[in-house]
């Protein structure tokens, strides 16, 4: 029973999904997965399956919407698009992320105190 009570952005994966949809426009699941792998320079071996529960959660939050369509090579696929609420959330989370990563980065700077 992995129920996620706080329902904040589910880890960085959700953030990556929202960012991808924001830049690329509507995408199907495989497209999102490929994009995340490419951006990460193939260093992030994504377990592609974990993407789908994350997408469902985002949809339940109202941050993405989905509808069935046809892909470039004529396959039926479900396309996800970011909603207005999703964009707002993305902006907030991005700012949050920057702040946190900034703090973490300052901690991680070699300052001679670390033995």
């Amino acid at each position: 029973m992995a129920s996620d009570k706080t329902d904040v952005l589910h880890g960085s994966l959700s953030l990556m999904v929202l960012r991808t949809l924001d830049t690329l426009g509507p995408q199907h699941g495989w497209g999102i997965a490929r994009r995340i792998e490419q951006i990460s320079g193939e260093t992030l071996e994504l377990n592609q399956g974990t993407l789908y529960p994350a997408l469902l959660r985002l949809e339940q939050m109202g941050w993405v919407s989905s509808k069935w369509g046809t892909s470039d090579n004529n396959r039926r696929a479900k396309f996800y698009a970011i909603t207005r609420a999703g964009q707002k959330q993305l902006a907030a989370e991005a700012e949050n992320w920057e702040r946190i990563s900034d703090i973490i980065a300052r901690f991680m700077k070699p300052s001679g105190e670390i033995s």
Partner: protein
Amino acid sequence: MTQLRVLLQRLHGLLRRGSLEQDLDEELRSHLQMEIDEHVRKGMAPNEARSLALRRFGGVARTKEIYRETHGLPAFEIVLQDLRYGFRMLGRSPGFTAVAILSLALGIGANTAIFTLIHALILRPLPVSNPEELVQIRAGAQGGSQGSWTYESFEFFRTRSELFSGVFAQNNTRFNVAFGEQPTPVEGVFVSGEYFSTLGVQPVLGRTITSNDDAESGGPDGAVAVISHALWLARFVGDPAILGRKLVVQGTPVTIVGVMPPQFFGADVGKAPNLFVPLRLEPMILKQQSNLHSRNSWWLDVIARKRTGLPDLAFQSGLAAIGPRLFNDILPRRKGQAVSEYESWRLVAVDASNGISGLRKQFSKPLYILMGLAGLVLLIACANVANLLMARTGARRREVAVRLALGASRHRLLRQFLTESLLLAGLGSTLGILFAYAGCRALLALLSTRSLTVTLHVGPDPWVLGFTALIAVVTGVLFGAGPAIRATAEHSADSLKQSAQSFAGRSLAANLLVVSQVALCLMLLVGAGLFVRTFWNLTNQHLGYDPHNLYVATIDPRFAGFKDDSLTRLYSELYENLNRHPSIQSASISIQTPIASCCWAEFLSAPDATLASGEPKRTFMNNVSPGFFKTFGTRLLLGRDFNDRDTAGSPPVAIISESVAREFFPGVSPLGRHISLKDPLHQNVEIVGVVEDVRTRGLRAGTEYEAYFALFQSKPNYAIVEIRSSAGLGAAAALLRAQVQAFHKQIPVNADTFNEQVVRTALSDRMTATLAAFFGSLSLLLACIGLYGVMSYTVIRRTSELGIRMALGAQAPTVTWMIIRQALLLAMAGAAVGIPLALLCARLLTSLTPLLFGLEPNDPSTIAAVTLLLIVLAASAGYFPARRAARLDPVRALRNE
């Protein structure tokens, strides 16, 4: 906001689980296909591409599982799973299930039925707009004992617009309406012009009565009336062209201008008026019997709507301020009284959001008591089910142990057990609701008599269903929690080894349950016994008349144009005709009958009384024809009855009751002496006879002073015809109608058995007695089932012990007695707890209100009889298991281990 949204989405997901699953399948398939395509495009072999794609995806089944958890409500799904499992378990032991559900259904049904009545009669707000603003205006020294008003006082209230946004007056009555030939009684109400606007109800057809219609000669449309939905359907088959049709109401034609909606039954709960007539048409319809212009007739209910937004304090002080003007200037003052009789009065506004009701006063206390009794029945049923559940959890101990061993948490198992109990309670209450609605019909019949129907809307209602759901949950937890905690408390390793036989603790708990069942049952039975004997005492006391085979009909030939001499002639001819009729043993005519003779009481004096302090005494009067006492079976103690020589021309004569004789003429014969009333018609009337006292004001009231004058020496208007006949109501009513209407077709005749009128004064006693007896038998049955279950279980538990005893030479009767003795001990322990409790409750209840009649709350014979009954039944509940025990084969019993 987002949380709610997610929840809704998940609920939605739950409902369309199937289609979401398909969606996901298809989505994943297309994902994998794209991945494979990609690899193939890069030159990989299709097989290899497929396995790489699957690897990179990372577990399709696992993804689906996580997905499923996300899109539904896992907690809810577990409940569903528990319910499915619960249904299976119940189905596996149908005997247990049937007994448990039936016990609960009876208990819950009884409570639902009584609550339905309480809700309909007492709690439910009127189906009008903003009912909470409605108040009934009453007055009196404390609490407002006086609820009726004169027309002048209503007019006074009507102009108090600083307090009320609307005020109306009403008077419930019964009209005789001519539908074709036969005048038919129709329940109706006189309503002032503000009635419908103050209540705020709209008609389904036409218009309501307005202030314009409320005028003595009729409004712009003449004399109008509004009819109920029920009358519209029954008499006019719902004809939409009803508006403008005329009804002849007691000889006066009125025009129908509107039809009310089906859920509107007026402001008097329990009555269902079918005809609403403007108040000021009353003189036109009732003619000589009109009250409208009488300063002394207190005949109107006054209901007002409080001005919206008026603070309560201002309202109360405003009410107090208008009181003196009303009491000093408007209300009739009795002549010759120095101090106003209203000195101590003050006005009160009683909440009327749930309407007003005469029934409420009569039935609310009995209903609350019955609610308590029904609660006891439910407790007994709960104890039964708890007992059954414990026996069953004993049998399920291995299952529990296995599940605990396999890693189920105790929490999870508790939940499973409670779900099963709640399931039982749910099924029980569903069946109970069905019982309740069947029961409510029967209950309403108990509240009604043939001529006076109580109409309460008792259809399914959210409040009632909510109440039932609540008691279902409470009972489910009550009987389920104990067994569930016990069942899951034992440690798995031990339980697995144990046989299903040795639990001393379980049998202690079971015994405690049975003892409390017996105690509760005894309390209920004592209550039932007291109420049944009260009703018996009421209906079998010496009344001074014999109410059986006696038929009465009120007639008023003035509606057919008879008056003065023609009226007197009609009565004397009718009297002759009836007494000549072969199937009538005795007939008479009077202007009152006992029970109904409420309305003519005066101060009687005796000018030649032997007692020095012969103060005038308030006495009930009646004018009766010869044969009245013979017809009623009232004994003539001294002198003679009236006869046909007592006519208008002969000296006036009277007959007095024995208490009047005792009061004015102690020790001497009153015959030949005289009595007087205040009016000139009744001065120095010679006493020619003395009759026994009769109970004239109902079964609970004592006797009153009574005096009778000769009917044919007075000028009767309306009258009551009485016949004694063994013909039965149908024949007697037909006979009365034929005899009366031989004079004129349009004379209304409403015949009834006299006994019906007598019983009507003890309706609430009848209801309490009948229901208490029913609940008592129900609880007895449940307690017997409980005892039987425990004794059967004891026999199984003690099988090996009994086997040893029998092998050592114990005889069958000894073994039988052993078991029966245990049942008796349980019953006696229950009685020992129950009797003091029953005494306490009976004392408490009767101290509140006079419920009992002719016996004390600690009536020893009732308690003894009830205890004896319980003990005999306990012995028989123990007998069958005991017989089984006595028939045990010792060898097999010993091997039973």
